[in-house]
């Protein structure tokens, strides 16, 4: 492997460790936003939730957490559908979102 290749592998390892170390705090924020959105109907909380899920979905696989990214992606689609009015806000929808966050916590 060239020096550049080794440097890139080292960078990816360090970035993955950093990303994974930050995940517990991210999931706590996710839970808070989900709770606020459900309890208060606060649209900003919904958008924050969407943004957080989008970020995790986009980065997790690169940093070695493929299943985490998949779960975040499913949550992102669900939240987007609700925000855009394409999915009714039902107990089942909230349950699926809570399940997604729980699943992500288990994957840590």
């Amino acid at each position, binding site marked *: 492997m060239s020096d550049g290749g080794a440097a890139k592998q080292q*960078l990816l390892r360090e970035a993955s460790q950093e990303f994974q170390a*930050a995940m517990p705090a991210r999931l706590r924020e996710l839970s808070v936003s989900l709770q606020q959105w459900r309890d208060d109907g606060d649209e900003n909380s919904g958008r924050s939730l969407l943004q957080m899920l989008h970020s995790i979905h*986009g*980065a997790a*696989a*690169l940093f070695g957490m493929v299943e985490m990214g998949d779960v975040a*992606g499913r949550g992102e689609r669900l939240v987007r559908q609700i925000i855009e009015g394409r999915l009714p806000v039902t107990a089942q929808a909230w349950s699926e979102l809570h399940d997604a966050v729980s699943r992500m916590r288990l994957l840590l």
Partner: protein
Amino acid sequence: MPPAVRLQQHSPDRVLVIEDDPSLAKFLRQFLEIEGFAAVTAANRDEIVTQLRRTPPPDLVLLDVMLPDVDGFNVLRKMREHPALRDVPVLMLTAKATRESVLKGLAGGANGYITKPFQPENLMAAIRTVLGRRDSPFEQRTGAQ
């Protein structure tokens, strides 16, 4: 003239990474630097405006579609309306791999589209293609294969 000497006469291409995820933005900046680019990041509207007002403009922009306080498609539209920025190549980064969003980006003047999650080497290949380069500057400098 050896490649190393030839390269010293040129400034590295400057890449603006517009990405709100701090881990991903940092990784991309450092990865680009290993590849021989000069990279800066912007995570929100204010930082984007600050970076795009600098002269000369970046040689390439990596643009995340979904940002906290601004839509990436709007950033692209503003760039294409601006005389100093309209020719700057833009690669869109997104997890929204729908046909509609791809067409929207390309119709808005994006030069390419990378769907997250991506492999860094694929992103670099797209960057080099857009910039019309065959090899990474690092490999040119070291002669590594």
